[in-house]
């Protein structure tokens, strides 16, 4: 026992878990699809005439008002409330929402459930339309070169201080433009590489100004980007920040000497670390926020608690200040197994993050006992699993040549039996697909692209491989390299412990590719190592998913080589070329270049033209197969949802997307306890 290593213990455990998994999988295969309901959700009411004129509040806040400790509710909300029409009915106040989280790195957990969201603009429940949110409205000026942001009159921070245009000016001048706090300007604050500015017009109006038309700005404000509210404040982003609070930690306002003293007293290494800590939504309970719930006990303790913000600007159609639920309590789970088991035991009220699709049968079996219901929320992106070819791989010229041969990539894509993978790992709930997003996505190029190079056709694949010069095979039936150095052996890098079992699926693909004479080596690596390898251009094939790509322009990293820090890359040298506007790296091949150019161009053109460009981007991606799509539109990534039966206003299906901060897109502030 003692001599057995940690690794082998884990392996045994995983093997046993996998065996149990396969056994129950067979039972549940057909129940999966029936758990997918109709897409629905609450709506933002933008018509001022329909807004409630009088307001109600939670009983404990009313009590505080009576004691004179809080101003009246109408005064706290201001003149322009953000009105949300709940999905089914107006709810009632009270109760606690229990969930699980996995530690300080899991801050997205709270951003997604409880931040409101606090973006200036945000998506409607379909994830398609951009609606006003914290901002009352956006007004385009000067042909898209400037945007006026109208703020809500009388809106306040959670400490009761006014939220005004000064908070934008402070963020832009003193945080964003401070090289210590934000060393690299955001690409999202720029159009065609040229940075924009933010300026105050009057108390309730802000102007975003750019050197060239920036038609994409509303989407950028709505998406999970650098300009999207306090969720990104921990790295100095967000678009606005509570000036009145943060000035005490900024050298410009207190002086460097005084600040250094403060930093030392608070035991921080530098004032920058202290400032970013104080500006962290999940870590600092004192930080004034705009979100409907605010951190009460921080994320680096065993229980991350959030409680209602008395100055929340959100109200329902009856004038009740939202949220309905008083507190959100997220308890630390030491590992995902414990978290899943707690969900199965009914210890969570609404949990979506970290739930494992492979355990679906067990979730279903315990529904009655745990008093919960299971929902599936498939994503709208084309790949729960994708395989990226590193087009810049250069350690082995022979292999590099094949990765840059379109027919080689296409043949490999045709050699995958997606149905087998779907049944085994997705319990039949996914869709065999190329990389393109769901049919109803506005950038979907057309139905013929779903199955393009994404069906099983061993005969055709073999013919294509024969034709490009890989006809010779060895005794075992594997194809030989064209340079005479033996068998053509290619490698795929996978990561373990993810929502999708990449390694196991890759092993299955390895078996399937034997039929087309391709010898695949599966290498599971640890995350930091994967990152190092991709950055050093040592990766060949890489497995990952393309979640987020349903929002092509705000989340492009799995569409083309867009960022260096990736666990699977289509080409690190192309990334450098793209980010440096051609100064470094390697110029992409013509079609990839065309794809990149179209993507870039879309930011500066009106929506209609942009949609066409988006379609073109996906067309090229599907035709060229830079990335193989395996299974898509499945619920594997955060698409399994367990909700208590007596929770109200729960949508039967939600738009599942990182850009939509799901479940944020369903506005959890409207969830309530029926009894």
């Amino acid at each position: 026992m003692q001599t057995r290593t940690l690794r082998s213990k884990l392996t045994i455990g995983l093997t046993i878990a996998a065996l149990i998994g396969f056994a129950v999988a067979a039972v549940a295969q057909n129940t999966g699809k029936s758990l997918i309901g109709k897409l629905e959700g609450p709506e933002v009411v933008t018509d001022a005439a329909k807004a409630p004129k009088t307001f109600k509040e939670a009983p404990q806040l009313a009590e505080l008002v009576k004691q004179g400790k809080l101003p009246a509710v109408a005064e706290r909300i201001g003149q322009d409330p953000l009105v949300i029409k709940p999905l089914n009915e107006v709810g009632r106040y009270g109760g606690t929402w229990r969930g699980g989280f996995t530690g300080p790195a899991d801050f997205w957990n709270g951003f997604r459930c409880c931040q409101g969201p606090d973006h200036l603009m945000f998506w409607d429940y379909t994830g398609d339309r951009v609606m006003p949110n914290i901002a009352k409205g956006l007004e385009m000026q000067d042909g898209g070169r400037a945007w006026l942001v109208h703020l809500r009159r009388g809106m306040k921070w959670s400490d009761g201080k006014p939220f005004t245009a000064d908070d934008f000016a402070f963020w832009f001048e003193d945080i964003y433009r401070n090289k210590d706090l934000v060393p690299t300007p955001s690409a999202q604050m720029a159009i065609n590489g040229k940075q924009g500015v933010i300026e105050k017009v009057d108390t309730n109006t802000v102007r975003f100004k750019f050197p060239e038309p920036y038609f994409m700005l509303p989407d950028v404000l709505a998406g999970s980007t650098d300009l999207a509210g306090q969720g990104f404040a921990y790295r100095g982003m967000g678009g606005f920040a509570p000036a009145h609070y943060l000035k005490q930690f900024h050298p410009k306002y207190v002086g460097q000497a005084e600040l250094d003293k403060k930093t030392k007293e608070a035991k921080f290494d530098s004032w920058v670390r202290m400032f970013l800590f104080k500006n962290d939504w999940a870590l600092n309970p004192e930080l004034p926020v705009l979100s409907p719930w605010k951190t009460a006990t921080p994320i680096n303790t065993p229980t991350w608690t959030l409680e209602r913000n008395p100055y929340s600007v959100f109200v329902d159609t009856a004038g009740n200040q939202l949220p309905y639920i008083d507190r959100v309590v997220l308890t630390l789970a030491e590992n995902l197994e414990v978290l899943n088991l707690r969900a199965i035991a009914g210890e969570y009220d609404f949990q979506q993050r970290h739930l494992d699709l492979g355990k679906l049968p067990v979730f279903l079996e315990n529904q009655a006992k745990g008093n919960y219901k299971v929902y599936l929320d498939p994503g709208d992106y084309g790949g729960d699993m994708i395989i990226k070819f590193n087009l810049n791989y250069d350690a082995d010229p022979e292999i590099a040549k094949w990765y840059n041969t379109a027919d080689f990539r296409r043949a490999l894509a045709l050699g995958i039996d997606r149905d087998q993978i779907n049944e085994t790992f997705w319990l039949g709930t996914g869709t065999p697909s190329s990389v393109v997003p769901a049919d109803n996505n506005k950038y979907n190029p057309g139905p013929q692209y779903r199955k393009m190079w994404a069906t099983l056709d061993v005969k055709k694949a073999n013919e294509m491989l024969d034709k490009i010069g890989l006809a010779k095979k060895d005794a075992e039936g594997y194809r030989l390299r064209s340079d005479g150095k033996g068998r053509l052996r290619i490698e795929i890098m996978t990561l373990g412990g993810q929502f999708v079992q990449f390694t196991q699926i890759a092993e299955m693909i390895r078996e399937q590719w034997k039929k087309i004479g391709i010898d695949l080596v599966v290498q599971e690596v640890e995350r930091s190592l994967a990152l190092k390898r991709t950055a050093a251009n040592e990766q060949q094939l890489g497995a990952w998913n393309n979640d987020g790509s349903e929002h092509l322009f705000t989340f492009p990293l799995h569409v083309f080589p867009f960022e260096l820090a990736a666990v699977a890359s289509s080409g690190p040298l192309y990334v450098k070329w793209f980010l440096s506007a051609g100064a470094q790296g390697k110029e992409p091949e013509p079609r990839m270049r065309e794809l990149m150019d179209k993507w870039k161009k879309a930011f500066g053109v009106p929506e209609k033209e942009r949609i066409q460009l988006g379609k073109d981007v996906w067309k090229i991606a599907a035709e060229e197969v830079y990335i193989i799509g395996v299974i898509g539109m499945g619920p594997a990534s955060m698409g399994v949802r367990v909700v208590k039966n007596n929770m109200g206003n729960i949508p039967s299906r939600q738009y599942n997307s990182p850009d939509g901060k799901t479940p944020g897109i369903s506005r959890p502030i409207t969830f309530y306890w029926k009894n």
Partner: protein
Amino acid sequence: MLAYIGRRALLAVFTVWAISMLAFAIIQLPPGDYVTSYIAQMASMGSVVTDEEAQNLRIQYGLGQPIYVQYWKWMKQIGDGNFGFSMEWRRPVTEVIGERLWLTVVVAVSALLLTWVLALPIGIYSAVRQYSIGDYTATFVGFIGLAVPNFLLALVLLYLGFTMFNAHIGGLFSPELQDAPWSWARVWDLLKHLPIPALILGLAGTAQQIRIMRANLLDELGKPYVVTARSKGLPETRVIVKYPVRMALNPFASTIGYTLPYIVSGSIIVSLVLGLPTVGPLLLRALISQDMFLAGTIVLLLGIMTVIGTLISDIVLVWIDPRIRLEDT
């Protein structure tokens, strides 16, 4: 005797210092550093961390300096009772480890006590009644206990606890008492949660100790001094407990040294499975995210525990076995 203990204690201090250096060096071995793992984390959530930003972070955390400089800084801090700042938890290391350390000790000590309470009598019984039904049963159960991986047992017990007794899943406290200040209710709650982890952690050790006790005692039982004692008419219990058992206890004492750290580090997987808020899972996570000071401090603590354990077992050995005392002085 005092000189003996003094010498041992001095050696222990030197060992701890060597361990601290080793601990720090080992943590640097894997590729990348905390910033790399932070970038990976950001990337998986769709955020881009640029090279400049990463460089800035490295400067802020002091990761760019040579390893001996970092080590020296860490040592200086420890001198002031400050074990550094956990990069992932963004709190001082001492705070992060804080309560977890005491809970770890509680779990470890109860597992150790359980091991002894079970292993001693059973071991004696199976030696004295060799080849009886009781001996065979104990042997059978003992080998099963040795062979079953304890994390698997933990999974099974968790599942049974949930399906049959509706027990709370994982952890050492009920949800409502998780963050409560210490009170009798909370202590009682802890005691209620303790038996399962203690049993699981202690089981493999118990099986092992039963076998050792049995084998050692069997060696002693046939020796002339036992026969002499018996022939002089001493009652059977006294014959066995007074002499051969005392001799057979030696291995128990000498294993204290590595039992302590084993229960802490060997319990990582069990603690993970059971969701115990102990140091084990913290160490695993710190190693994965390359949270240097946190991982370093825990490894250092494990080292200190081993050293203290060895010291204790040295002293206990001297105490129970006069022969060692004589050899040494």
